[in-house]
């Protein structure tokens, strides 16, 4: 079995916001989440928008900028040279110098708009070298760049272009190339393909897949689209209203979804060549300022029982690598 390289224990956090400049509220976006990421695997995080997926990604990556606030929890990372570091104990300077981009890199949401509009593509790459104090021969850098770009099917002219001269899909691929620059062991991709059409999505996903199979790195993929998870993942974790409600091998989860939420997610998907009426999920994720008591899914759950409305369900382990947080599978008290 593959080694764990990133262990998250009881992460808990959210946003502190002021409403109308007066009332202070806490948006509890990540509630007591524990997860592990293994060597050379793709871990997917699924769930609707507004379930805290992106917040979780930011917390793991260490992008803690107010109003985001981490209240408790720890993250352990096994670095390339075999040490274990506790990420949230490190100062931001250390994380910046030693972890970001070298051990772990990040593909942000709406990645087509994250490039500096005033810099040519090549300068944006060279800057990343500079940020990490890497001395490199200019010609070598250029050769390296062209290699990376061509592995993402980008023509070499791209390096002299400004971002606005490229199409959305091309900019997205440039950002992916940037995140793979130092061949990091972990890549966290936050909705890398929303806001593009299906054809471009397919292209980008296949490129990421190809890169990962060659590099044997680990990928944490956040997406609300279950078909993306079916295509990419080894394991998938389903998130609802700040909780991880189900974790398991992607084949098992898709074959036999346990949690009613997972089931609803998969059942709402439309398959190619299928005209039978599908059922969507009514309602929307709860307000994270005042989440419902007990299981947070109970107002939308067709199997909700009395206990679901009162008590939070425990995480039940069912066989290898399979966890579900639901009273249906717990020994009822």
């Amino acid at each position, binding site marked *: 079995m593959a080694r764990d390289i990133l262990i998250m224990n009881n992460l808990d956090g959210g*946003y502190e*916001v002021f*409403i*109308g400049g007066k009332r202070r509220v806490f*948006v509890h976006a990540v509630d007591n989440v524990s997860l592990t990421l293994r060597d050379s695997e793709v871990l997917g995080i699924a769930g609707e928008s507004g379930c805290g997926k992106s917040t979780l990604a930011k917390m793991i990556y260490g992008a803690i900028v107010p109003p985001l606030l981490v209240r408790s929890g720890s993250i352990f990372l096994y670095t390339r040279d075999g040490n274990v570091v506790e990420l949230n104990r490190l100062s931001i300077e250390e994380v910046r110098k030693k972890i970001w981009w070298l051990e772990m890199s990040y593909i942000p949401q709406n990645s087509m708009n994250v490039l500096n509009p005033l810099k040519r593509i090549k300068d944006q790459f060279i800057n990343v070298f500079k940020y990490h104090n890497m001395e490199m021969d200019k010609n070598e850098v250029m050769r390296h760049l062209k290699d990376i770009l061509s592995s993402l099917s980008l023509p070499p002219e791209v390096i002299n272009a400004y971002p606005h001269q490229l199409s959305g899909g091309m900019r997205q691929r440039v950002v992916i190339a940037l995140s793979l620059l130092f061949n990091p062991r972990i890549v966290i991709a936050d909705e890398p393909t929303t806001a593009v059409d299906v054809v471009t999505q397919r292209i980008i996903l296949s490129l990421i897949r190809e890169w990962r199979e060659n590099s044997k790195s680990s990928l944490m993929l956040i997406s609300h689209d279950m078909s993306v998870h079916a295509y990419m993942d080894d394991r998938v974790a389903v998130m609802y209203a700040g909780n991880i409600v189900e974790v398991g091998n992607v084949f098992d989860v898709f074959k036999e979804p346990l949690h009613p939420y997972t089931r609803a997610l998969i059942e709402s998907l439309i398959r190619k060549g299928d005209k039978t009426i599908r059922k969507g999920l009514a309602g929307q994720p709860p*307000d994270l*300022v005042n989440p419902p008591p007990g299981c947070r899914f109970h107002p939308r759950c067709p199997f909700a029982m009395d206990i679901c409305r009162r008590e939070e369900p425990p995480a039940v382990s069912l066989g290898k690598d399979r966890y579900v947080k639901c009273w249906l599978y717990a020994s009822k008290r």
Partner: protein
Amino acid sequence: MAYVYRFKEFVLKPSFLLPLSIFIGILIYSFIFPQTIAINPGRWYYAPPALPPSSKYLFGTTSMGQDLFLLVPLALRNTIVISFVAAVISVLIAWSVGSIAALSSSIVRVVLLTLTDVICVLPGLPLLMVIFYIWRDFLTIPLIGIIMGLIGWGFPARAIYSIISSLRQRTFIYTSYFSGLAIYKIIVKDFAPYLLRYLMINVVGTMTWAIGNEVTASIFGAMKMEEVTIGTTIHWAMYYQAILLGLWWWLAIPVVFLVMFVLSLYVLMVEIDKYLFARARVTWG
């Protein structure tokens, strides 16, 4: 989750109440108070000259024997009228030119935009000074405002043009069209709330611009010097060497009132704008 900014909450805020009362106070002092006095405060030597503020002459008197307590409201009123007339005229022109340019075909648009560019580039103040000076014998207070309005509409027209052209592209205009609204109704219902905000900014901006021009032109003496305005008051104070003679009140009192007026107007605008647009703002999400 949205935060609704209630009308009552808005009205009772000190940052709204304070400027509002200053504003109303100044209006009463400058528009209603002069109606109650029998003498013409612009006349010379109805009071002893060059007295500092005292209980009898609250704001002191000028070298020409004018009581500033009576003179300042008149000057303030004239300056406010000038700036308001200028704002109305310039807004009328700016809005017609800007919206016609945004809504019409390419040739009309190019012509109007070029005209706007020219007006923006023309040096307003020297032009105004020459005009005012040449016709100083024929000027009246509203006419001064009208002339300023005719010259100061360039930048507002440009802004209106770009606001309307970007509003035109919004999808909700199509929704209104398919709700059966005629073009003029779409303008009233969909454009107006956005434009209303700019109207306010526009009026206040042009008013301060016109006040500045009035004061500057008057200081240079390019104005009908017999009219009592804040600018001419300052001009005469400097002409009779108020600074050398140490008559600080002659300059300070008009300036203080003018500053209070401009600032209260500005803060009111900012607060009303905050209130009107808090409705559309989603605080987080």
